[in-house]
């Protein structure tokens, strides 16, 4: 084959010696290039680590992709062999094999041994070329222990082998073929590289990227190192639009179809694909002539400016930014953005250490192209536009929130010397021994400060800020500075980076608020703040609610504190029933002492449930009593055998529900009995005294207050049957109903008592507060559990909610629940 080579090179004996000299001369420069690369490989391929190693493959593949860009190649095959050598095969034209006059070697050898050579040394070869950016396949050759080149061109096969960049053989024609293309196999030099293992995934990712960028090119990769072999084939007709879809795989996207624009001209081609997801990261890949410009550059800045400008413009014109004063920053509009921008231009200029930044002057062109197209797109796709703008506004809000959080933390993190002035701290320094009482209202704060045991109890008075929202509506909130004070006092800091439970200064944090509706609201507010922003405190059991008494009872010289309504009733019963004797006139059963007290407590219970139930019945007390009688009375339907409540509504004939209806209509109610087809259940519709329509159906009967009321009523009807004969100190008196009996008993009890109801903590003097609520020996603290907090949050959500009706209803209901039994 030597002869062929000679023939091809066309050397004559006459020129041989001269040639030899100049060949030597060129060899020297070649050798110089080789030495330079081997001496400082990182300068050419970035590193001698993993990145540089993989770069070798990309360099070879880029040559093939260039062929594809020029339209001569559509398949590139990459193989990782068992010894970590790599083969790259394409079906392009094959590297030229003809004699290169200037270099006096085959063109192929020039490509393989001269820096920055390659198909591109002929500027007309490819209009746009990625390889221009690269260092050429010669670098790969110089840095390989060995490299085998095989070219299929013009019906013949040519081969040549190199060792560390030095030709071992000349380029030889070794056979005939009908194939076309180039095959390069190389083993990276272990003298150069610190690592020699190729990563299949890493190579795959990059090759996939190349396939996306070049619609229609088929790139395969095969890994022979493992059994069974792994392989991928990358082939995308959709180009970069498919690329962004791929990047958004497993993400929830804001719009199904990527936004795609393209423009193609000799001077500059631009392809852009955009798709937002609901995440917060930005993932934008930029390419210039297929080179991943990892450091961006002019094309990326053009893209970013256009995006920020267009989104801001749409936010303004559409009115979406109405409640948002500042403008949306670049970071805001890029949250959740996944985009690929690819430009192609002749002779691109790159800069930077790794040449990963495009320097050519394309910013203006890219920007104006995108401004125009994106504006047009937003106008035509308002749904998508709104989602994107909405997301950017959210991002801007979060940025604002983060700024505020930092502000609060910054002032708070300085340490205990900066404790808020209104905190009355304790002397103890061991957090495990310390308690913090968070008290709402100044007067209460004063009592608490005086009443506490200052050795281990600290007091922080907070003051809710009152706002007049509408004419007759007032709201309360925690001001910015109160929140700051609270966090500083706790010592934990706040937020992802700053919160630390170990810095908590008190292991008991106790909310102490008034026992009225206002107090319960402010407690809801505080508890919700803790639950949302520092749930760790609740989880680890550090949060408590103080239980100040609602009543003080004085009998003669004895004073007693009573914590709530129920206990109060119980207390009164105990007092009153001690010298009282009641006989049911009907059953002749005698009630006295403990037995009487127990029975009357049931009456109180019934009253509690009835108060709730009557609201479901248009506040019609008569209707309520009729129903109780119909269901639970001595002649009521539930007295019969094994009738169940649901059975009454299910009964096929409707006999029992019919009796309820009869009873109601006898009492003068207009009723209509019908069957709910959907569930096959009976229902009675009637009109309450107030005029509102009321349905007596399973929905009503399934409420706990209905079932409890009926159950207690039924028991009381059987046991504590009216009327009663009351015997007190020898006298006798007849009482008609249980209610009357209860009132009578309570009144008797109250006769000798002084009852004080505390409306606020401030009404207690420091000693009283200590004795009843703060003294660890006597107090009861309610530990807040996460479940309680979850419920509190729900209540808070209703209180906060925009829905006016549920809010009003909740406040009313809540007020009723807190309302005192009239003692």
């Amino acid at each position: 084959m030597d002869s062929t080579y000679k023939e091809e090179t066309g050397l004559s004996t006459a020129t041989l010696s001269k040639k030899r000299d100049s060949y030597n001369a060129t060899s020297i420069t070649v050798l110089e290039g080789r030495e330079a690369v081997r001496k400082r490989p990182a300068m050419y391929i970035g590193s001698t680590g993993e990145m540089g190693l993989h770069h070798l493959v990309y360099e070879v593949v880029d040559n093939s992709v260039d062929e594809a860009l020029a339209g001569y190649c559509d398949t590139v095959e990459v193989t990782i062999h068992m010894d970590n050598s790599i083969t790259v095969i394409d079906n392009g034209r094959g590297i030229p094999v003809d004699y290169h006059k200037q270099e006096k070697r085959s063109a192929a050898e020039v490509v393989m041994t001269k820096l920055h050579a390659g198909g591109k040394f002929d500027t007309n070869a490819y209009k746009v070329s990625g390889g221009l950016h690269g260092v050429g396949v010669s670098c790969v050759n110089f840095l390989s222990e060995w490299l085998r080149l095989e070219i299929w061109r013009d019906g013949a096969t040519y081969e040549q082998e190199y060792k560390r960049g030095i030709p071992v053989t000349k380029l030889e024609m070794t056979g005939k073929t009908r194939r076309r293309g180039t095959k390069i196999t190389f083993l990276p030099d272990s003298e150069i590289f610190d690592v020699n293992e190729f990563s299949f995934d890493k190579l795959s990712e990059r090759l996939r990227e190349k396939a996306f960028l070049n619609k229609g090119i088929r790139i395969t990769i095969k890994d022979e190192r493992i059994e069974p072999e792994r392989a991928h084939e990358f082939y995308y007709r959709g180009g970069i639009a498919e690329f962004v879809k791929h990047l958004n795989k497993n993400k929830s996207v804001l719009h199904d179809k990527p936004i795609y624009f393209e423009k193609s001209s000799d001077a500059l081609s631009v392809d852009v694909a955009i798709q937002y997801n609901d995440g917060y990261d930005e993932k934008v890949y930029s390419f210039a002539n297929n080179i991943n410009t990892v450091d961006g550059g002019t094309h990326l800045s053009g893209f970013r400016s256009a995006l920020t400008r267009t989104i801001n413009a749409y936010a303004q014109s559409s009115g979406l930014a109405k409640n948002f004063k500042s403008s949306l920053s670049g970071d805001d509009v890029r949250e959740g953005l996944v985009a690929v921008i690819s430009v192609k231009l002749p002779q691109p200029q790159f800069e930077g250490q790794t040449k990963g930044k495009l320097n050519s002057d394309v910013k203006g062109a890219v920007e104006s192209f995108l401004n125009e197209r994106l504006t047009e797109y937003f106008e035509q796709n308002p749904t998508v536009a709104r989602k994107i703008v909405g997301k950017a506004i959210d991002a801007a809000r979060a940025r604002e929130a983060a700024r505020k959080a930092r502000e609060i933390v910054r002032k708070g993190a300085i340490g205990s010397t900066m404790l808020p002035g209104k905190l009355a701290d304790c002397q103890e320094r061991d957090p495990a021994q310390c308690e913090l009482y968070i008290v709402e209202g100044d007067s209460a704060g004063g009592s608490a400060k005086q009443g506490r045991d200052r050795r281990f109890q600290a007091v922080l008075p907070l003051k809710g800020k009152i706002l007049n929202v509408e004419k007759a509506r007032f709201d309360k909130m925690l001001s910015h500075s109160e929140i700051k004070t609270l966090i500083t006092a706790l010592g934990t800091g706040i937020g992802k980076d700053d919160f630390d439970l170990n810095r908590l200064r008190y292991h008991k944090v106790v909310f102490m608020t008034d026992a009225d509706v206002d107090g319960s609201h402010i407690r809801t507010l505080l508890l919700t703040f803790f639950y949302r922003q520092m749930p760790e405190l609740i989880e680890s059991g550090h949060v408590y609610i103080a239980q100040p008494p609602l009543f003080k009872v004085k009998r003669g010289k004895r004073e007693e504190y009573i914590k709530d309504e129920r206990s109060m009733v119980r207390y009164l019963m105990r007092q009153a029933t001690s010298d009282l004797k009641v006989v049911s006139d009907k059953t002749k059963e005698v009630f006295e002492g403990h037995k009487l007290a127990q029975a009357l407590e049931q009456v109180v219970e019934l009253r509690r449930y009835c108060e709730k139930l009557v609201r479901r019945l248009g506040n019609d007390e008569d209707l309520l009593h009729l129903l109780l009688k119909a269901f639970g009375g001595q002649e009521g339907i539930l007295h019969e055998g094994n009738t169940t409540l649901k059975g009454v509504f299910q009964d096929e004939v409707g006999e029992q529900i019919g009796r309820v209806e009869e009873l109601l209509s006898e009492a003068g109610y207009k009723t209509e009995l019908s069957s709910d087809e959907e569930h096959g259940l009976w229902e009675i519709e009637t009109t309450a005294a107030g005029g509102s329509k009321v349905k007596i159906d399973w929905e009503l009967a399934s409420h706990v207050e209905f079932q409890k009321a009926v159950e207690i009523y039924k028991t009381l009807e059987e046991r504590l049957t009216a009327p009663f004969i009351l015997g007190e100190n020898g006298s006798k008196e007849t009482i008609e109903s249980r209610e009357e009996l209860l009132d009578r008993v309570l009144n008797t009890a109250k006769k000798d008592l002084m009852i004080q109801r505390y409306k606020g903590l401030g009404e207690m003097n420091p000693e009283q507060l200590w004795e009843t609520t703060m003294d660890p020996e006597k107090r009861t603290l309610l530990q807040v559990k996460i479940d309680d907090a979850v419920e509190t949050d729900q209540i808070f959500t209703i209180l906060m909610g925009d829905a006016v009706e549920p809010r009003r209803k909740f406040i009313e209901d809540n007020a009723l629940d807190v309302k005192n039994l009239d003692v």
Partner: protein
Amino acid sequence: MKCPTCHRPSKWEDNPHRPFCSERCKLLDFGAWANEEFRVPAEEPAPSLEDGEQNPAPSNDDSDRLARP
């Protein structure tokens, strides 16, 4: 359970942002607190209490100075 900010499903276990679904939602919530957006209904303030702070409650700060080292 639902995220208090976006009302999308959120979980408690192994969730550093609990009860929120994400750091973002937690941050937005904190922003709202800091911005005094969260309010509860209140009763009309009694006129005398309106300037509670200037109203030197007797002994309000009697003990705190003693308490500090």
